[in-house]
């Protein structure tokens, strides 16, 4: 068995694959995030856009490991953190939770086909995007959590070395969905930091702003005392807070909304993260301040090469800040492309609707909106979840689940989950294409996919 040749520098910093996060209530199971995949790259901003209830925030929380009961990330999900330094550091600190994939492969005497035949594996090679079982890298299976029942890895293992061994790690990843305890804590802030929606409540009211920034500095950079105070003031200054030396001694209630959000961003930067997740950071702010914050983030990214994941429901903000955009609807990503294409050639009817409802982009005098609300995704998708609101819906939309497909066979870098695509197929062929694809990849025994991926 061979592991596909992969090189860190070509690979994205964070790879989200088949992420599924569900909330188990007594009444129903809500698939808040239902099988989404996307990448984050250093220096790039990936926007996630959608109405409220589309699963954006749960996606962010899944990446941070902040999904609370009764929610959890399901088996099959994988979020890889491909940062070599982190892998090296973590493998030293948490050697008991580190796995060298090659040696697991050596110990395993069956073939990949046997592996997929095992009763605890309820997925097909297509789930990972491969045709044949032989071509699926073992690392993918381990990362998605299927190695535990097969006895290949411990439930605790979360650091995977794909090239080299424990002393000379050339490649590997930290599997975020398998993190818990101490490595999870060290991942938060220091590797992936997050800025939350409401700046008014995301600072602790009883400690000074400086205190809260210094706390992060001490934790992640080991700065104390005077040094920390200086650095905190420098950070506040860097995020555009005037008179920073005085303001670090003030309490959050003495800051205005925009200033508070700047302070929260400064606090996130104090952790020196590789990835910054912004969950609607500007929604609570007025328009001018919103623009300032967006500029600030762009500047910071240029200086630090941060990978930013930016969540918003506002198409205008997306146009401003992102390089790539994922449009989310009812837990699924319905369209992915770069920002220019998204605005010049939106393909998914939902994206079109979102673009039409931007105030100012209208031709008529009335604002076009998409009627209705995002449905709660409380059952496995066997149809298009947008169908009830879709102006282009046709019969098959009720029966066939659209999967992410290239817009047309010759366009890379633009996928859309709608039965009307690929463009260069006629509708019947396209529907068939989707039907085949979803039959091959969908986890067909939903019961077993409910297993915890831990």
């Amino acid at each position: 068995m061979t592991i596909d040749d992969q090189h860190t520098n070509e690979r994205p910093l964070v790879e989200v694959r088949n992420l599924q996060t569900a909330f188990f209530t007594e009444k129903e199971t809500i698939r808040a995030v239902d099988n989404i995949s996307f990448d984050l790259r250093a220096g790039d901003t990936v926007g996630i856009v959608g109405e409220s209830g589309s699963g954006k925030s749960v996606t962010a929380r899944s990446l941070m490991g902040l999904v609370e009961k009764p929610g959890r990330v399901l088996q099959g999900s994988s979020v890889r953190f491909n940062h070599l330094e982190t892998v090296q550091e973590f493998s030293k600190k948490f050697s008991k939770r580190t796995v060298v994939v090659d040696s697991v492969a050596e110990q395993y005497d069956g073939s990949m086909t046997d592996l997929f035949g095992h009763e605890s594996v309820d997925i097909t090679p297509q789930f990972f995007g491969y045709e044949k079982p032989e071509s699926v890298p073992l690392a993918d299976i381990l990362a998605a959590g299927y190695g535990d029942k097969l006895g290949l890895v411990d439930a605790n293992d979360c650091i995977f070395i794909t090239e080299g061994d424990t002393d000379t790690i050339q490649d590997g990843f930290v599997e975020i969905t398998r993190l818990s305890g101490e490595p999870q804590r060290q991942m938060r802030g220091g590797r992936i930091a997050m800025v939350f929606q409401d700046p008014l409540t995301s600072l602790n009211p009883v400690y000074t702003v400086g205190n809260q920034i210094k706390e992060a500095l001490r934790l992640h950079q080991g700065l104390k005392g005077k040094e920390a105070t200086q650095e905190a003031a420098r950070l506040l200054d860097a995020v555009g807070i005037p008179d920073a030396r005085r303001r670090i001694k003030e309490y959050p209630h003495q800051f205005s909304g925009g200033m508070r959000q700047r302070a929260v961003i400064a606090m996130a930067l104090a952790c020196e993260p590789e990835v910054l997740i912004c969950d609607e950071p500007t929604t609570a702010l007025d328009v001018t301040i919103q623009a300032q914050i967006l500029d600030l983030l762009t500047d910071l990214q240029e200086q630090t090469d941060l990978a930013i994941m930016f969540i918003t429901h506002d198409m205008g903000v997306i146009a401003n800040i992102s390089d790539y955009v994922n449009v989310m609807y009812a837990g699924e990503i319905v369209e992915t492309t770069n920002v220019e294409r998204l605005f010049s050639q939106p393909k998914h009817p939902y994206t079109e609707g979102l673009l039409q409802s931007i105030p100012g982009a209208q031709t008529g005098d009335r604002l076009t909106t998409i009627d209705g609300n995002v449905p709660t995704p409380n059952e496995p998708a066997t149809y298009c979840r947008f169908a009830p609101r879709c102006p282009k819906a046709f019969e098959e939309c009720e029966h066939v689940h659209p999967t992410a497909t290239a817009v047309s066979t010759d366009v890379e870098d633009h996928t859309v989950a709608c039965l009307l695509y690929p463009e260069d197929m006629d509708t019947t062929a396209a529907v068939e294409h989707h039907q085949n694809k979803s039959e091959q990849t969908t986890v067909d025994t939903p019961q077993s996919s409910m297993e915890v991926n831990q």
Partner: protein
Amino acid sequence: MSRWEYFLKRLLLSIPVLFLVITFLFIMLRLGPIDPVAARFGPEATGADVQRMRDRLGLDDPLWEQYLQFARDLLLFEGQSWVVQANRPVRAVIYDTAGPTLWLGFWAILLPLFIGLPLGFYAGLNPNSWGDYVASIGGIVWLAMPNFWLAVMLLAVLRQTDGGGWFGFDWYQLGPELRSITGTPNLDWYSISNVSVFDIVSFPMLTGMDWGAFAVDIKFILPPALVLGSASMAAELRIGRTAMLETINSNYVITAKAKGLKQRVIVWKHVFRNALIPLVPVITNEAFILIGGSVIVEEVFNISGLGRTFFLAVIQGDLPLAGSLLFMFTLVIIFLNILQDFLYTIIDPRVGYER
């Protein structure tokens, strides 16, 4: 307005309150239905005695003079008991009876604080766990028992244990030995003498402790303190749980988590202090309840403390003593209010903040 200006303002506000209370007490006691002379001599007093007494008590002086005299006596604690301990200065009576009450009150505050609050915080940190259910239901049951009933029941149960009994232990023999479970604690386990430094200044200092007697007094006071603190314990448990629960789900705690802070730091630094804010008034308000409760509990456990003395003073028409005690209770309450503001000012920087 800064936090401390706000605090100072609250402090100054308590002075007019104090005078309002004095006036109110004067009206209640002097102009109320109790005839002080009758209270002293009983209804069969003769005319001459009555008149002499009226003169002595100044009851025929102009009202404003009486008021000033009354206010002065209260402020300086200079009145004299009429009936309960006839002709003794109020100050001496208070001095004798304050000890047991302070001792009782101290434990009645300490027990809930160190049992109710931690249990509540534990329940709030582990919501919907077994520990939470047990603590919450226990709190409700405990709260549902009125303290006069609880006092009687506790006495009955502890008496049963004398010489074994049904419960398999003997409270009298358990630990330091007790001869009786009711009565007034001795509080003679400390000795204070004047210590002089270089023969220049001398001041009183704790010079000796009788640990055995100390233990006896603690054991002695535990049952009444438990009864007196029972309502507070349950209230602190319930509100502590809610406060904790609200705080751990607040955004800044999630932010702290996202920062990668250790759970220990999150709980002790970010959660604890915020959860205390709603508890400050609960804890200080309970001290008010203690004053009322001590009247009942001291009566049931036969402790001659301030509460019981106050009770006697009221039913026997001992106006100066009752007035002074009421005035003292008022002082305590005003002090607690100031303490509450002070605690707020320390814990919550938003106090007094207006935009």
